[in-house]
């Protein structure tokens, strides 16, 4: 009997071991950041459930994530300068370095071999080997007489081992060519506008667009033709109007494209701005419930989902891109921080920080399909990002 019990125990132990490394793909996985706990929940978007947690990632307030091209590893950029490579299949930290004092986010190269981190303190960009997290290059964001360093925002990957990023205090856009990773070649674009606060690259990786906090308009660089320089688009936007206070900076990562129209958060206005990307001119404005933070298009481009800064951060509004009307106002919970679509967009996951909850909505019926208990959830990042520019 005793021997049998031992055999059964051994078999159970063995199968438990196997279950932990279940043979599976990573295409429908993702992570949810638990910002105060310094932990990630790893989620399965098919089962709509958490499959485990990975702790010990430091200060994850304003954390962001990029993925290895096989979707197995997430690179997590923490506010405290931590860069952590986590294995979604084995549910563990693979490597971790604290690479700066204060970081805002990062990007991964087109070939998946380089990870870059954009830092506030010390202001600049650091380049890492994606396998080992060994630092390959340090690019200080010096400006003016060279004694000052700017905070780096809006780092985006571009074709050919290039990365574009913006210098907040300096009002500059830099493009770093990392074809030789230890010897970056930097192209600097000066006087692009005051206080670029975030940026995005279009889905095709061609246009880098930096939002300006300090003045009207958006700075645009055509990465196919950097020799043409940075030009200002949407020049008249908001001119002559008194902007409203902005209680949370909008994000441009999810700058939504639907056909040739782009939808973006206005700054200091309770509006979503519609831009025709054929002419880069304003094509309309849609009044919404508050200061938009994320304006995100479903992958099919049919609807736009918007969340808001205080005091409207308990709402999410849905805009129909054909009629350009708000069709729904949802209440996913208190302090909605982020939204993420599955690859083809049949569902959207929405985090509500102050209700410790992530809700999964059906994007066609708006039905709540699942709720996950997550401690102070902020960003939600699915592995589909691995396959796209700018994510």
């Amino acid at each position, binding site marked *: 009997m005793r021997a049998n019990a031992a055999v059964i125990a051994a078999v159970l132990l063995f199968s438990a071991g196997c279950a932990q490394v279940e043979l599976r793909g990573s295409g429908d996985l993702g992570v949810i950041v638990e*910002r*105060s706990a310094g932990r990630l929940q790893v989620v399965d978007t098919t089962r709509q459930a958490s499959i485990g947690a990975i702790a010990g990632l430091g*200060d994850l*307030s*304003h954390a962001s994530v990029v993925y290895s091209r096989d979707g197995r590893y997430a690179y997590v950029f923490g*506010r*405290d300068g931590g860069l952590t490579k986590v294995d979604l299949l084995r549910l563990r930290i693979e490597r971790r370095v604290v690479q700066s*004092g*204060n970081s*805002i986010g990062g990007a991964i190269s087109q070939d998946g071999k380089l990870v870059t981190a954009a830092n*506030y*303190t010390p202001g600049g960009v650091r380049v890492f080997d994606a396998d080992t997290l060994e630092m390959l290059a340090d690019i200080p964001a010096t400006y003016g007489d060279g004694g000052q360093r700017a*905070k780096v*925002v809006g780092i985006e990957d571009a074709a050919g081992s290039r990365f574009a990023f913006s210098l*907040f205090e300096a009002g500059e856009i830099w493009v770093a060519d990392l074809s030789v990773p230890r010897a970056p070649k930097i192209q600097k674009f000066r006087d692009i506008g005051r*206080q670029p*606060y975030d940026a995005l690259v279009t889905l095709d990786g061609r246009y880098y667009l930096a939002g300006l*906090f*300090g003045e009207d308009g958006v700075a645009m660089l055509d990465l196919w033709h950097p020799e043409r320089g940075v030009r200002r688009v949407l020049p008249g936007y908001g001119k002559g109007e008194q902007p409203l*206070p*902005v*209680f*949370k*900076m909008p994000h441009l990562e999810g700058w939504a494209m639907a056909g040739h129209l782009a939808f973006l958060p206005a700054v200091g206005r309770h509006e979503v701005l519609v831009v025709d990307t054929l002419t880069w001119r304003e094509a309309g404005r849609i009044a919404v419930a508050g200061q938009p933070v994320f304006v995100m298009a479903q992958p099919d481009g049919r609807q736009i989902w918007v969340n808001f800064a*205080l*005091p409207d951060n308990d709402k999410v509004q849905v805009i129909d891109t054909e009629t350009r009307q708000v069709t729904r106002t949802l209440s996913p919970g208190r*302090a909605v921080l982020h939204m993420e679509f599955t690859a083809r967009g049949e569902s959207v996951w929405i985090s509500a*920080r*102050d209700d410790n909850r992530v809700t999964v909505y059906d994007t066609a019926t708006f039905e709540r399909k699942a709720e996950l208990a997550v401690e102070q959830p902020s960003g939600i990042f699915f592995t589909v990002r691995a396959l796209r520019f700018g994510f």
Partner: protein
Amino acid sequence: MRRASVLWPGLALACALAPAYADGVAPAREAELVRLVRQDCGSCHGLTLKGGLGPPLAAAALGDKPAAYLKYTILYGRPGTPMPPWRAYLTEADAEWIAARLLEGFPDAR
């Protein structure tokens, strides 16, 4: 020993100020303010208040900035920077309470 000598005056100060909190800010409101500062101010200044797009708000970083200056900045913002005026959400007493707590090291959210 050294730690104790730092702590006791702090406690004494807290006790001396306690009635003043009761005047301006109810205990339930204090919890809301702690959450607001940690979570919402934290989106620019960092959850640990060590700075982000906005400057650090840790006591050491604030140095000898006067409480009145902090209170004014909280209520009216800093034109030319992304710091917004919070007076639509915060009373004078709220802002005074936050400024005083920042200068002595802000309490934890949990």
